[in-house]
């Protein structure tokens, strides 16, 4: 549905934010995973027609996104990372205005749109409150509401769960999953669970390049047998870091659980573990760091 071919972008100061990105994104939820600064936002903004890439083509169905951005905008819902709102405007009024801008011309249609969406994102009771007084989660829900106006075919949500509390995050992801069945939804995040919970397909980006692409299950399978685990003391950790390719460390009951990447059994008390998406992600990051 959405095809990116050789998309590169170099910022005026010489930063290469995207480096020959080619992706084929079908209908459904698509996760774009990567650390901060990997180029996810640049890619999202490029697809959302906010930025023209230095080279490459982007096709959505038969719309050439770079040549005819206004055509894509008619069927686009975009929730940018970290947006602000106008002071002194209520959620209802702003959403109504957004509906105008998105071409919902008749007042009756607009009323239906706005009321349905406000209820869907659970903002109905605060619809007359000013947006500027909203909490992060409420603001994010307003963001998703405006992105859904007019039943877009392509929905881009850039780090939507950053700053949400667990309950809000859960509700938000449920809502996305509901919508994501029939349209293309691209979700960028640096939180692995967002992707593993929701997405049929995913890509991992670092340094402006796509390092890995596929369905979470296949990707997990590809690292099977290469992830090893050991519980160590804090003092031991530095030595382990020197000797092995450490993917992740986490504390459990005061001791440190280390996951390392190794093609062979590293011995030394390490045991094999079933890889999760997190291990896949961290091993991809480790590989790209080694390559750099």
């Amino acid at each position, binding site marked *: 549905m959405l095809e990116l071919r050789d998309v590169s972008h170099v910022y005026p100061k010489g930063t290469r934010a995207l480096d020959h990105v080619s992706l084929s994104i079908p209908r459904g939820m698509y996760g774009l995973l990567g650390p901060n*600064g990997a180029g996810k*936002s640049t890619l999202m903004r490029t697809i959302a027609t906010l930025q023209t890439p230095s080279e490459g083509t982007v096709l959505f169905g038969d719309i050439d996104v770079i040549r005819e951005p206004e055509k894509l905008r*008619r069927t686009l819902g975009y929730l940018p990372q970290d947006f602000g709102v106008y002071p002194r405007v209520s959620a209802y009024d702003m959403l109504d205005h957004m509906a105008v801008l998105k071409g919902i011309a008749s007042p009756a249609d607009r009323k239906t749109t706005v009321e349905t969406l406000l209820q869907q994102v659970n903002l109905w009771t605060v619809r007359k409150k000013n947006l500027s007084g909203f909490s992060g989660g409420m603001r994010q829900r307003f963001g998703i509401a405006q992105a859904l106006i007019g039943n877009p075919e392509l929905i881009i949500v850039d780090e939507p769960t950053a700053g949400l509390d667990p309950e809000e995050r859960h509700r938000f992801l449920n809502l996305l999953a509901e919508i994501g069945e029939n349209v293309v939804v691209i979700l960028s995040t640096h939180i692995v669970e967002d992707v593993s919970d929701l997405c049929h397909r995913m890509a991992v980006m670092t340094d402006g390049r796509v390092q890995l692409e596929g369905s979470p299950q296949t990707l997990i399978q590809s690292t099977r047998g290469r992830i090893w685990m050991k519980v160590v003391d804090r003092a031991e950790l530095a030595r382990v870091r020197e000797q092995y390719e450490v993917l992740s460390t986490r504390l459990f009951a005061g001791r440190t659980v280390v996951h390392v990447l190794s093609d062979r059994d590293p011995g030394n008390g390490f045991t094999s573990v079933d890889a999760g998406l997190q291990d896949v992600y961290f091993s991809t990051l480790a590989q790209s760091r080694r390559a750099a």
Partner: protein
Amino acid sequence: MLIQIARFEFRYLLRNSLLWLTFAFTFAMVFFSMNIQDWELGSEGGLVRNAAYATLRNTLMVSLMFMFVTTSFVANAVIRDDETGYGPIIRSTPITKREYIFGRFLGAFAVAAVCMLAVPLGTLLGSAMPWADPANLGPTRITDHLYAYFVIGLPNLLAHSAIFFALATITRSMMATYLGVISLVAAFFSLDGALDRPHLQTAIAVAEPFAARAVKDAVRYWTIPERNTLLPDLTGALLYNRLLWLGVSLLCLGIAYAVYRFADRGMSKRERKQQKLAQRQPVDAPFAAAATAVLPAPRHGSRWRGAVWRGRPASSPPRRC
């Protein structure tokens, strides 16, 4: 669509308290000048308070004063999206640049135009108050107000709204736009005196942006009764002045349209900064560096003595990074 964008802008700015303060202040100023003996706006003896010339002069003065307020409205209309960070959402909708730029301008300008109605309203209501001294007032003539509003007030508002709208679009900065306003006011007052030569009279009357000169020249040899009741003909320097500044206004709007980039200018400053901060930390070891770093310890109790003794605070606060 353009009209709907303008309407939203208009209603949005109506919630701005600056608008209502300005309206109230202007209204009160004109209102009380009609009916309080010692409260006079101009100082020409013999003129009635609601004289034709007084209405023109009040409108002129208010339009000059409004420059600061209208600039805040029109600049806000074009800068707000970048300043609040709502811009990307607006720019990913199917509206066109034309609808956006002119719709926003029209809405902001309409608000200023409404605010300008404080002058005729103040005059009409103020002169109708029972405590007003009839000796100070002439008959009410609606044509005075129509003339003052449409020939002087509105074109003046349009000219500086358009100029500073263009400036705000180019600089994307409220501060720079206000510096522009102050420069124009400074230039206006210093040049007005400096260029006061007979052979330049007509040129200045045409070129000066508020038409203050053109009006003054037109009524220069008029008697008091004439100033009380007559309006200058819309010919000669006054006409050319109005046409010139109408042209300048349209030109500025054209410039604003041409300069505005609807496709994005890359990431905002805030986004770039956040990204830089994020890149400093390796992903899998967010606290590794911090754990081994030695931070300066605070010292308590001897801050003042130490400061005097060494000429600087004994314990400098740790830097936030």
